[in-house]
């Protein structure tokens, strides 16, 4: 039956031309090829987010008066609402985690080198957008923690010189975080960010498909010296089936997390109440937050927070353009970027743990 359908479409669309490259696509297999799965896992988790997000959209109400109650309604009254919502929250965190893993694996396996600079840039942009998803989505249940985390987060964005204040007002939909902020974040979360991300994913995937999988330099060198060592796997169906297994493990993990550790509802936000002690952002912002806390309030003549924000922004920009800072044919396989990557990873982990345990 599938064959008949395929023939019908092929007569009209000439699918062979499109499908053929995919049939012949191969994936290199070596000691480190397990890392190749993480991009696909991140994509799968994004798909889970889109599907559970659409389901949640059927019941969620984005106004300050009703947002919290609607999420409570989903958690308590809607059949399996607790499951859909908890999967959405857990998958968000897992997706950000796998995105970071994917990025670091690309960094250490040096897959960002020519000709894959555009893939890296689109990937880092995707990472930023995904964190934007996390930040905007976190506010939507309109509970106390989210309200104050958003206040602190947008306040920090407002510290950027010159453009900071207008940017903060734009993000907040006003000078303070109010119901207008909620509506605006909802618009970002379900329309603006998905649109941008879909376009970038399309570009990212197209580049990957077009250029094939990169091979780590050491392995590349070995295979160049001895071509008979080269091992490859067909993308379709071998790699895909393995990827499918990874996806099944992911959905099983999500289900287990949702059932065993349902996501908290919290307490409804009261805009005029004072902030509870010890407000912290979500874990994926902790390393930045803790770094900012450690910077003294005045460094020479510059305000400490401004310096911190500028520093983070510059670091982000540098990270985005990383491939362009390394020559195409570096002298060694382990370059200074590898060292920088190790430093960045260790720094993020240490700062996140520190931020978690600090008062």
């Amino acid at each position, binding site marked *: 039956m599938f064959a008949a359908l395929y023939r019908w479409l092929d007569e009209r669309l000439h699918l062979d031309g499109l499908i053929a490259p995919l049939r012949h696509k191969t994936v290199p297999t070596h000691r480190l090829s397990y890392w190749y799965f993480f991009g696909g896992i991140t994509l799968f988790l994004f798909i889970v987010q889109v599907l559970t997000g659409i389901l949640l959209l059927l019941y969620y109400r984005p106004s300050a008066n009703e947002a919290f109650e*609607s999420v*409570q309604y989903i958690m308590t009254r809607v059949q399996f609402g607790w499951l*859909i919502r908890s999967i959405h929250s857990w998958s968000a965190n897992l997706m950000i985690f796998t995105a970071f893993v994917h990025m670091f694996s690309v960094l250490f396996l040096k897959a960002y080198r020519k000709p894959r600079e555009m893939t890296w840039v689109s990937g880092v942009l995707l990472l930023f957008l995904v964190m934007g998803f996390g930040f905007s989505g976190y506010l939507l249940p309109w509970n106390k923690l989210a309200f104050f985390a958003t206040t602190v987060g947008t306040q920090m964005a407002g510290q950027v010189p010159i453009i900071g204040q207008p940017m903060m007002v734009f993000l907040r939909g006003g000078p303070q975080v109010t119901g207008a902020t909620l509506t605006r974040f909802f618009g970002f979360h379900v329309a603006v960010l998905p649109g941008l991300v879909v376009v970038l994913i399309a570009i990212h995937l197209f580049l990957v498909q077009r250029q094939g999988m990169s091979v780590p330099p050491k392995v590349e060198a070995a295979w160049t010296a001895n071509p008979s060592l080269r091992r490859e796997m067909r993308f379709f169906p071998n790699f895909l089936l393995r990827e499918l297994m990874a996806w099944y493990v992911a959905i099983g993990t999500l289900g287990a997390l949702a059932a065993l550790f349902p996501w908290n509802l919290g307490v409804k936000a009261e805009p005029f109440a004072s902030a509870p002690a010890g407000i912290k952002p979500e874990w994926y912002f902790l390393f930045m937050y803790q770094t900012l806390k450690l910077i003294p309030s005045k460094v020479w003549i510059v305000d400490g927070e401004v310096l911190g924000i500028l520093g983070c922004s510059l670091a982000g920009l540098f990270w985005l353009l990383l491939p362009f800072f390394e020559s195409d044919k570096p002298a060694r396989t382990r370059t200074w970027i590898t060292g920088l990557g190790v430093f960045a990873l260790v720094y993020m982990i240490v700062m996140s743990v520190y931020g978690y345990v600090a008062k």
Partner: protein
Amino acid sequence: MCADHIPQTRTTRRRAIGMFLGGGVLASLASFLYPVLRFLVPPPVVDLGGDEVVAAKVGDLKPNSGGIFRFGSRPGLLILESDGTYRALSATCTHLGCTVQYRADLRQIWCPCHNGIYDLSGRNVSGPPPRPLDAFDVHLRGDEIVVSRKREA
């Protein structure tokens, strides 16, 4: 003899794989789709309980009487005055949190815990209560009396 067994094991193996795969696909898809399909069916109770609530129906209250209704997380007091005006206020006394009631004889709101008295606008006029009661908006929708919080800025 070995040649006889080989095709047998291959078929049984293929069948085993087919069972696992087919069974796995069906079972896993069913376990994904079942919650989603149940999710799509709207629950019988539609009221969110946050912003506004149907406190009562016209005719539930007699003139010059009051009744308690649930509003979100706290009790509310709905009063029908003798001239037909409806009033709705928070029923949590601002002194120590007891539930207040409408006194038809006093035509005022009374707290039985320590004899606090509020007027019909919620202002604390006598006794221990330090603050007035929060007032709500009341509209009539058909024969439903709808109570809603005052609009947030």
